């Protein structure tokens, strides 16, 4: 009986994930069969979803470009540079920061960061305006996709840092000591012993961070003043899938609701693909490393 219950719980998880996919597909179906003119924008589902998919990718890309180098450096600092007593406390602090609810980061981005970034955006528009991504006129409120990307970076950073720190700490001590004994400086030791060992782990941490950044809702919903897809990062505009759902779903009914669920399905598929690639890299890495 007990083993049956345990098996049943396992089967329930498989069923739940299956149900998530099935219900999303069933509820999204009406969107795909609706006449193109009835979809928001009036040009069919593809024309509706394409700009917000690109917006989602832009925001996630900005977040990762900022968070990856800094996150890896923070992890290196905690694992290899900080004094040991300090390192324990710092690791704990990073874990706590990963636990701060996203709505708080969103509120911080909307009320504090956006207004701080408005002056730099103005400067970018004046001096680098000839580059399409910095084309003016800069937003007066600072509530742009770049701000949203920076807030996402701040949220993803503790995740990347705490995962890569775990991996750096697993580097075989003998390799590191051997490198130091051969006269390597600390940086050379890290480059020759630590980084090659943890390359797979870093990539998978970044992929998981990417999954998080793609699906993150509140930070973007609160920070970004959305609009149609544009190339400039410092004007208000662009939108992400998750924020679109959060902003419009509470008032949606009928076809609009099915449309948003279809958008959710697209997001689900994208994050699923990203996560599967990440897991695949982790598993491949496990086979090659001699750590186990």
């Amino acid at each position, binding site marked *: 009986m007990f083993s049956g219950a345990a098996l049943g719980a396992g089967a329930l998880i498989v069923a739940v994930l299956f149900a*998530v996919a099935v219900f999303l597909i069933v509820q999204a179906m009406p969107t795909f069969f609706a006449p193109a003119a009835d979809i928001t924008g009036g040009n069919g589902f593809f024309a509706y979803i394409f700009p917000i998919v690109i917006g989602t990718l832009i925001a996630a890309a900005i977040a990762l470009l900022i968070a990856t180098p800094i996150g890896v450096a923070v992890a290196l600092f905690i694992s290899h540079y900080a004094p040991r007593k300090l390192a324990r406390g710092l690791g704990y602090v990073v874990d706590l920061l990963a*636990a701060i609810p996203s709505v708080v980061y969103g509120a911080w981005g909307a009320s504090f960061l956006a207004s701080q970034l408005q002056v730099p955006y103005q400067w970018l528009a004046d001096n680098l305006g000839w580059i399409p991504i910095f084309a003016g006129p800069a937003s007066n409120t600072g509530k742009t996709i770049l701000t949203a990307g920076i807030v996402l970076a701040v949220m993803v950073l503790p995740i990347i840092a705490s995962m890569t720190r775990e991996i750096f700490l697993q580097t075989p001590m003998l390799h590191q000591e051997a490198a130091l004994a051969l006269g390597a400086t600390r940086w050379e030791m890290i480059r020759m012993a630590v980084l090659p060992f943890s390359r797979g782990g870093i990539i998978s941490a970044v992929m998981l961070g990417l999954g998080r950044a793609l699906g993150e809702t509140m930070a973007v919903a609160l920070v970004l003043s959305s609009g149609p897809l544009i190339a400039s990062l410092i004007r208000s505009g662009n939108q992400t899938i998750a924020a679109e759902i959060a902003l419009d779903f509470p008032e949606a009914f009928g076809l609009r609701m099915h449309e948003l669920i279809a958008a959710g399905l697209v997001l689900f598929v994208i994050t699923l693909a990203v996560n599967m690639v990440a897991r695949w890299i982790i598993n491949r890495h496990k086979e090659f490393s001699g750590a186990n």
Partner: protein
Amino acid sequence: MATLMTERKRSALTRGRLPKYTPYVVAVSAIVVAAALMSLIGFNVFGWAVLSAVLFTAANVVTSAVVEGRRKATDKLATSLVLGAFLLALLPLVSVIWTVLVNGVPGLLTPGFLTSSMNGVTGAVDNASVANGTQVLGGVYHALIGSLLITFWATLISVPVGLLTAIYLVEYSAGNKFSKAITFLVDVMTGIPSIVAGLFAAALFSMLMGPGTKTGFVAAVALSVLMIPVVVRSSEEMLKIVPNELREAAYALGVRKWRTILKVVIPTAISGIASGVTLAIARVIGETAPLLVTAGFANTINTNVFGGWMASLPTYIYAQIMNPISPSTPDPSTQRAWGAALLLIILVMLLNLGARLVARIFAPKTGR
């Protein structure tokens, strides 16, 4: 004679090394030079700090390159960059906590904030409190109740399912194909965006109970989709590290497998399982997006999770910021939002600390 002295000073071991005090000298001079430069173009503390750091790095690396050679210089550059990145990362994180504290303390300390709901608090009330300078009315009582109830029901669903799955994976499956599939799917579930989990629950209940069904229970189902994988992963890890000798000793005494699990395996692992569950609760109590699409917004106290819209702390923060009660004077709403944000962070931190405490209290007794 003089040449002999210098020869002796430059022994092979110390040749080409900077004295130990060099970084301090460089740091002080970098700060002074930066201050001088900043006073030329208009002084501000932030620019001063950044300029000092850049000057320090450059000077340190150049002196090292000249005296000690390229390898040492690269090492110093890397050290500076790592330390700089760490400080840069601290900046926004400290700023987040500072902003919440500064803005949240007045809201949280307003009398009645924790014990009153938003029932009857209208734009006119907020306008009056700003115009007369009286305290901001309205509070988070209903949202706090909602958050606790929804999280409680989510825990009630997730813990049995998650724990039993972990038991199946560790004790019964013996690594068969089905268990590998479960492990893989649990990994995939960990990455489900929270809004998609909310959409799933909303779609499920709108098919079962009619469109537009929004109750606390729908939200609890959405949260348990996010919570189950966390519980499974942490419980699985904990069950795995229970030594096999304990199980074998129980079997040798003729104890049935299910009784062994209940009486030997789980009590040994209970500290880790309990702390894992607490961390999972801490994770879902702050989730906003799924609640937004499943529980709706409410201004009154609702203790029935099976009927009616329900407020929660995260959606309360979101609603107060996005749609202030009084659009013309949003300050009272902002104050309430930050008060609720501070309360939420305190809750999450307490749960995190609680997880550590729980792990220590329930740790298996060793010795006699």
